[in-house]
C-alpha cells in the first residue's frame, strides 16, 4: 500500500509529467499502435478464435503485467538519479560494467523500430488522405465497372486494393517510393510532426499531444465500432472471429502467438517505459499507472479491434480475406476493400486510417524519447542539438528501409532482428535485473512507494521465477521456429540455388503431371488444377520423376544434366536465382548494419558513462549519503 515516506530526488530533475493522466495516456499511446488494430485480430482468428483468449489472458497476467511493473519501477528509480535513458538507468541501479551494454539494447531497439515504423505511419496517413480525397472510391468504382456478381466484385476490389498497396509502397521495385508518389510526402510530414513534438519536450510535446490524440483516437475507434456492430449479419462475423476452436489450444504455436502478441502489443521490456517512467516524481504511483496504461491497451486491442476488423471483413469479403495471415495485407488490402462495400465507406475509411495514423504517431514519439534522453544525459546536449542529431540519424536509417521497398524485405528483416529478437533479449535482461540483481523485494518495495494499489504477493514469485522462465521458454520456441530460416536467408548462394531449383522443380512437376493427365504431348498453355486437387498417386509419381531428373539433393542441378524441355525454363530460373540472391544480400547487409549500430551504441554508452553518467550517479550517491547522514543526525 501507499508508503507515506517521501523519497527525495537525488539529482536535478529535468522534466516531470504534469499529471498522472498525462503519463498514463502517453504510455498507453506508446503501447496502442498498429499492432493492436491490425495484428491482434489476425492472430486471434488464425489461432483458435475465442480460444485464443485463454493463452492471451494467461500471458497478460504472467508476462505483460509483471514486466510492465518492473519497467515502470526501474524507470522511476533511475529517474531519481537524474537518468532517463536505459544505459544510464541500468548503470545507476546495477553498478556493473555490463549494465550500460544491456542498456544499449534499450536505446537501439526504439531508434531502429522508428526507422521503419515511420514508413508504416506514412502509409496510414497516405491512405487517410486518399480516402478523404475519394481516390479509393474512384479506384474501386473503376475496378468493379460492369461486374455485378458479389464474388467477382470482391475479387476485383481486393485485387485493385492489392495493386494500389503495391504501387503506394513500391512492393514491386526498389526505389519506387522515391519516385514522387504521395507516400514520400507523407513520410516527410510524419517525420516533421514527430520531431516537432519531440522538440517541444516531454510535457509540452509528448504529454500535450497524447492528451488530445488518445481520446480522439479512442473516440474515432468507438464510432467505427458502433458502425460495425450495427451492420446487418454482424453476428456471423462475430461468430467467425470469436467462436472458439478449442482443439487449437493443443498447438504450441497458438501459445507462442498469444504470448508474443501480449508482449509486443504492450511495448514493454525494451526501454520506452523506462524513459517515460524516469520523468515521474519519486512518489508518483507506478502500480496504478502501469496497470491503467496496460488496460487501455487491452481495451483498444480486444474491444475496439477485436470486434471490428475481422467480423466486418468476414461479412463483406468472406473467410479468405478475413483470415489473411499478413498484418500488412489485413490492414492495407482487406480494410480498404471493406470500405467499398460498407455504407459511408469513404467517411469510415478516412476515420479508420486517421486513427491508425494517430496511434502510430503516439507510438513513434515514445521511440524517439529514449535516444533524446541519452543524448541529453550522456552528452550534455540541449534539446535542439539532440533533436537535430537524432533526426539526421533516424532519417539516414529510414532511407534504406524506404529505398529497399521491394516486398518490404529490408523492413521485414529489420523487424525480425530488432522488433522481435532483440526485444526478447532486452526484456529478459530487464526482468532478471529486477528480480535477481536489484532483488525482487527491494524492487517491489520501491514499486509500493506512492502506490494506491498493493501488488499481490504472488507477483514476487512470478517476477522472480515464472516470468523469466516463461520469457525464456517462448524465446527459445520462437528462435527454434524462426531463426534457422532467417539465418539461411542471409546466404546468397544457397538462396539463389534454392530459388532456381524451385523453378525447375515446379516446371518439371507440371510437365510430369501433364504427361500423366493426357496421353498426348502436353500443352504448356493449359493451367493445371492446384496440387491438392490432383490425384495423390499422380502427385506422388510426378514427385518421384522430378527427383529423378533433378537429383535428390537440395543443390542446383547442373545445366548440362537437364533435359532439353527443362532448359527452356533456364532464364526464369536464373531470374529467380538473381532475385533470391538480391534478397539475401539485403538481409545480410541489414544484419551487418544492425550489428554495427549495436557496437556503435556500446561505444557511445561507454563514452557517456565515463564522461557524464558516472559523475551524475556519483553526485546522486553523495546526495543520498548526505540525506542518510542528516536523517541519522535528526534521530
Amino acid at each position, binding site marked *: 500500500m501507499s508508503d507515506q515516506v517521501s523519497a527525495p530526488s537525488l539529482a*536535478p*530533475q*529535468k*522534466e*516531470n509529467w504534469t*499529471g*498522472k*493522466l498525462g503519463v*498514463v495516456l502517453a504510455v498507453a499511446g506508446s503501447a496502442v499502435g498498429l499492432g493492436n488494430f491490425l495484428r491482434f485480430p489476425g492472430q486471434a*482468428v*488464425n489461432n483458435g*478464435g*475465442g*480460444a485464443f*483468449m485463454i493463452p492471451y*489472458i494467461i500471458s497478460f497476467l504472467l508476462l505483460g503485467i509483471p514486466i510492465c511493473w518492473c519497467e515502470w519501477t526501474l524507470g522511476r528509480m533511475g529517474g531519481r538519479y537524474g537518468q532517463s535513458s536505459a544505459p544510464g538507468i541500468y548503470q545507476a541501479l546495477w553498478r556493473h560494467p555490463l549494465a550500460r551494454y544491456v542498456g544499449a539494447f534499450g536505446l537501439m531497439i526504439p531508434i531502429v523500430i522508428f526507422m521503419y515504423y515511420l514508413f508504416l505511419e506514412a502509409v496510414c496517413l497516405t491512405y487517410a488522405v486518399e480516402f478523404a480525397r475519394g481516390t479509393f472510391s474512384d479506384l474501386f468504382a473503376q475496378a468493379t465497372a460492369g461486374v455485378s456478381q458479389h464474388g467477382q466484385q470482391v475479387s476485383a476490389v481486393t485485387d485493385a486494393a492489392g495493386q494500389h498497396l503495391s504501387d503506394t509502397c513500391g512492393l514491386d521495385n526498389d526505389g519506387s517510393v522515391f519516385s514522387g508518389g504521395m507516400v514520400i510526402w507523407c513520410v516527410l510530414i510524419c517525420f516533421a510532426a514527430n520531431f516537432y513534438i519531440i*522538440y*517541444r*519536450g516531454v*510535457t*509540452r510535446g509528448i504529454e500535450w499531444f497524447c492528451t488530445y490524440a488518445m481520446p480522439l483516437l479512442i473516440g474515432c475507434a468507438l464510432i467505427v465500432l458502433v458502425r460495425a456492430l450495427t451492420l446487418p*449479419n454482424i*453476428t*456471423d462475423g*462475430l*461468430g*467467425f*472471429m*470469436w*467462436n*472458439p*476452436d478449442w482443439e*487449437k489450444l493443443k498447438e504450441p504455436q497458438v501459445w507462442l502467438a498469444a504470448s508474443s502478441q501480449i508482449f509486443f502489443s504492450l511495448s514493454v521490456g525494451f526501454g520506452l517505459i523506462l524513459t517515460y517512467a524516469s520523468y515521474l*516524481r519519486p*512518489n*508518483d*504511483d507506478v502500480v*496504478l*499507472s502501469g*496497470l*491503467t496504461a496496460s*488496460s*487501455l491497451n*487491452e*481495451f483498444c486491442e*480486444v*474491444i475496439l479491434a*477485436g*470486434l471490428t476488423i475481422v467480423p466486418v471483413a*468476414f461479412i463483406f469479403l468472406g*473467410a*479468405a480475406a*478475413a*483470415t489473411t495471415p499478413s498484418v500488412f495485407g489485413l490492414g492495407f488490402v482487406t480494410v480498404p476493400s471493406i470500405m467499398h462495400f460498407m455504407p459511408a465507406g469513404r467517411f469510415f475509411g478516412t476515420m479508420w486510417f486517421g486513427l491508425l495514423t494517430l496511434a502510430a504517431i503516439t507510438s513513434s514519439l515514445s521511440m524517439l524519447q529514449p535516444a533524446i534522453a541519452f543524448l541529453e544525459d550522456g552528452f550534455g546536449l*540541449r*534539446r*535542439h542539438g*539532440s533533436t537535430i542529431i537524432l533526426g539526421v540519424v533516424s532519417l539516414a536509417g529510414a532511407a534504406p528501409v524506404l529505398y529497399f521497398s521491394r516486398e518490404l524485405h529490408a523492413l521485414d528483416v529489420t523487424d525480425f532482428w530488432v522488433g522481435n529478437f532483440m526485444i526478447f533479449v532486452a526484456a529478459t535482461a530487464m526482468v532478471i535485473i529486477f528480480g535477481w540483481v536489484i532483488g525482487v523485494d527491494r524492487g517491489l518495495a520501491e514499486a509500493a512507494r506512492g502506490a*494506491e*494499489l498493493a501488488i499481490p504477493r504472488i507477483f514476487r514469485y512470478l517476477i522472480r521465477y515464472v516470468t523469466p522462465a516463461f520469457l525464456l521458454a517462448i524465446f527459445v520456441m520462437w528462435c527454434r521456429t524462426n531463426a534457422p530460416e532467417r539465418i539461411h536467408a542471409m546466404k546468397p548462394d544457397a538462396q539463389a540455388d534454392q530459388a532456381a531449383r524451385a523453378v525447375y522443380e515446379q516446371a518439371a512437376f507440371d510437365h510430369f503431371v501433364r504427361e500423366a493427365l493426357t496421353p498426348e504431348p502436353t500443352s504448356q498453355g493449359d493451367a493445371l488444377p492446384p496440387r491438392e486437387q490432383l490425384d495423390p498417386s499422380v502427385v506422388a509419381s510426378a514427385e518421384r520423376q522430378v527427383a529423378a531428373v533433378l537429383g535428390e539433393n537440395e543443390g542446383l542441378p547442373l545445366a548440362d544434366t537437364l533435359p532439353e524441355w527443362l532448359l527452356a525454363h533456364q532464364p526464369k530460373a536464373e531470374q529467380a536465382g538473381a532475385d533470391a540472391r538480391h534478397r539475401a544480400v539485403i538481409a545480410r547487409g541489414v544484419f551487418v548494419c544492425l550489428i554495427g549500430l549495436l557496437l556503435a551504441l556500446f561505444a557511445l554508452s561507454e563514452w557517456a558513462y565515463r564522461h557524464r553518467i558516472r559523475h551524475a550517479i556519483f553526485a546522486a550517491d553523495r546526495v543520498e549519503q548526505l540525506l542518510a547522514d542528516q536523517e541519522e543526525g535528526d534521530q
Partner: protein
Amino acid sequence: MPHAAVIAATSQGGLTLAGAVVMIVSVACVLALAGFCIRRVFAKPQTPERMHAPLDIDTHDT
C-alpha cells in the same frame, strides 16, 4: 487455409453460445479492468506540484 474452413463451418449459424460467452467474458473483463483503473486514476487527487529549487529547473526545452 484449413482453420478458415473450420471457423467458416462453425460460424455458418452465426455466433455460437460458446463464442458469445467467450466474447462477452473477454469484453467484460477488459472493460472492468479499464474502468476500475480509470476510476482510481480520476479519484486520486493529482500529486501536488513539486517545489523546484532554481538549480533543479533544466527542462532542456528551448
